[in-house]
């Protein structure tokens, strides 16, 4: 059997006997529709400031999905993820503001450079593992923030780089592609970010079910065993890094253009820790959990900014509680609901397949 157990596990729902019939699917489809509809309608009643929380949260979710590829699927810690996000952000800002490229090209370039930045780290990761790699990723992020993002050519000196929003989403000339009464610039930008998030989630979903995804999961479980089954360990490891970097680059570009200006100090070490925290609390391998918790980590400090310090306490506290009490994170808590939506019966029965270790990860 060439496919290790966990990798095959993700295929099981497709083959399983006893899936619900059409009548069983109906309530599940309706519930899913309601969730999607809720997210789509969510920005409409909000004012501009609150609508901007939603798109910031959406970019955080993209980063969470990106971190999850490395930490959840490949089982590799990344403490320098802000570097990939930042590379994407500055690339897109430079391409659009300085070279007059169209927005979509800027975001594509951001994905490419983010992927390259991650691939560079991936090459180091081929030689190092575990804690040593953690240290190198940490130092890599530091160097990116302090050295590269501060180069005058990139950051435009102390004032920060300019990153204009694309046509139709700008706040200067209201009235772009949508009805300006109903869709202010912040709201229309939310839908732009939603669209990209949907794209990334789709790629991620396809990736885990592909041959490459199964190979990456197999490498996480046991590198040597995977290699002995003929899996190209070097290639698939790098692929995971490239994919993760590309996702982070897209997230960075959307964040940059949403903010309009960009400074290096945003991408500091604590941001990297926040990314790791939210992914771990969200639950490695669980897209739904990461979605909820990343949104929470992005929006919570913005919503309670008058309690700036107390907000700082909540994140790490949640992490420590998660690690100690529920290593599967939010993904573990909402598993019954997600399972039900996927066609399984609703049950609280404890299924600890791969969950208990935290580092290994919940099955996607």
């Amino acid at each position, binding site marked *: 059997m060439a496919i290790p157990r966990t990798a095959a596990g993700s295929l099981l729902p497709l083959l399983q006997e006893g899936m619900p019939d059409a009548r069983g699917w109906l309530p599940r489809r309706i519930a899913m529709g309601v969730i999607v509809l809720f997210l789509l309608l969510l920005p409409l009643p909000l004012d501009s400031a609150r609508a901007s929380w939603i798109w910031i949260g959406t970019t955080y979710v993209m980063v969470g999905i990106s971190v999850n590829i490395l930490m959840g699927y490949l089982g590799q*810690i990344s*403490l320098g993820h802000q570097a990939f996000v930042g590379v994407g952000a500055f690339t897109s800002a430079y391409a659009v503001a300085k070279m007059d490229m169209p927005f979509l090209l800027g975001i594509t370039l951001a994905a490419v450079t983010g992927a390259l930045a991650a691939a560079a780290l991936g090459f*180091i990761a081929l*030689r*190092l593992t*575990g*804690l*040593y790699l*953690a*240290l*190198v990723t*940490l*130092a*890599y992020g*530091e*160097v990116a923030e*302090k*050295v590269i993002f*501060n*180069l*005058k050519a990139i950051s435009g000196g102390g004032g920060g780089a300019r990153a204009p929003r694309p046509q139709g989403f700008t706040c200067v000339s209201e009235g772009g592609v949508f009805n300006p009464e109903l869709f202010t610039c912040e709201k229309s930008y939310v839908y732009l970010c939603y669209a990209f998030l949907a794209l990334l989630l789709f790629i991620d979903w396809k990736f885990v079910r592909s041959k490459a995804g199964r190979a990456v999961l197999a490498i996480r479980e046991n590198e040597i065993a995977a290699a002995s089954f003929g899996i190209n360990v070097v290639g698939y490891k790098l692929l995971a890094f490239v994919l993760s970097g590309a996702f982070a680059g897209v997230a960075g570009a959307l964040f940059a253009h949403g903010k309009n200006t960009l400074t290096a100090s945003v991408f500091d*070490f*604590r941001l990297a*820790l926040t990314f*790791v*925290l939210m992914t*771990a609390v969200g639950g490695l391998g669980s897209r739904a959990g990461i979605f909820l918790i990343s949104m929470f980590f992005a929006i919570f400090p913005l919503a309670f900014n008058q309690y700036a*310090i*107390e907000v*700082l*306490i909540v*994140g*790490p*506290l949640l*992490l*420590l509680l998660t*690690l*100690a009490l529920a*290593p599967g994170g939010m993904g573990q808590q909402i598993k019954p609901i997600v399972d039900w939506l996927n066609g399984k019966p609703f049950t609280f029965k404890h299924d600890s397949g791969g969950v208990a*270790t*935290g*580092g*290994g990860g919940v099955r996607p």
Partner: protein
Amino acid sequence: MLTFIVIGIIQGAIIGLLALGIVLVYKGSRVFNFAQAEFGTVAAFLLLYFTTGRLKMPYLAALVVALALTGGVGFLFERLVVRPLFNAPRVTLLVATAGAALLAIALELKIGGFEVKQVAPIKAGKAIGIFGATVTWQQVILLAVLGGLAAGLAYFFNRTDLGLAVLATSQEPVATELVGIGTKRMSSFIWTFAAVLGGVAGALAAPDTTFTAGFMTTNFLLFAFTAAVIGGVTSLAGAFIGGQLIGISTALAQYVDITYLKKWEIDIPAFHELVIFILLLSVLYARPQGLLGKAA
């Protein structure tokens, strides 16, 4: 240039002291402790609290109490976070220590506020001036303490039963348990001890400058890890040498930056960080086990 080297040696001493604590925890628990530098900040805050305000304790008494309480923080941390994750993957534990560091910084901000703090040194004033650099008494004490601790720890791990028990725990916990050594007690001991070491670094480094919440982590943590890895994560002497190497390299990089790069109009922000990163990668490439480490 010699001025820079003197400054580098002093910075290297603080880095080396933190690296010692990191190595100790790594020897005992096989984990990189991201909270190591924060133990230092906690000690500095406690020292400030006990020497000023309502309490106004004598300085040395305040220092001892501050270090003891910092040790207590380490003990609690081991009980509440490390022990439940005893069998978890090491990376999970690493994330937990990072979370604890962030939590500590947030609590320091909550209690201490955002304003810049200053604590008095053990002995004020300038001790000697060499090569144009002023060396304060505090810095002399720092260097002496580092030397003494490095020698003492080397003796402890090679010659005493307790030290050997700690090493045994890290290498083969099950077998160690079988010969009647309580591995859990060892773990408590290691973390308490490491917290005190971190506290010593913080309490000695803080009077040199003004400080704010999390200053040890932002200023020294990355360098201390790099020092520990360059020296070989399991070698106490390596941590000491790694600290000096990082301190002096940083100072030299700053010297090159100021005297040459500026003249040639090459503007590389935070040039010394780049130098240290390249140093780290080169050492890991050529000798993955570190300068004084044994190959795994």
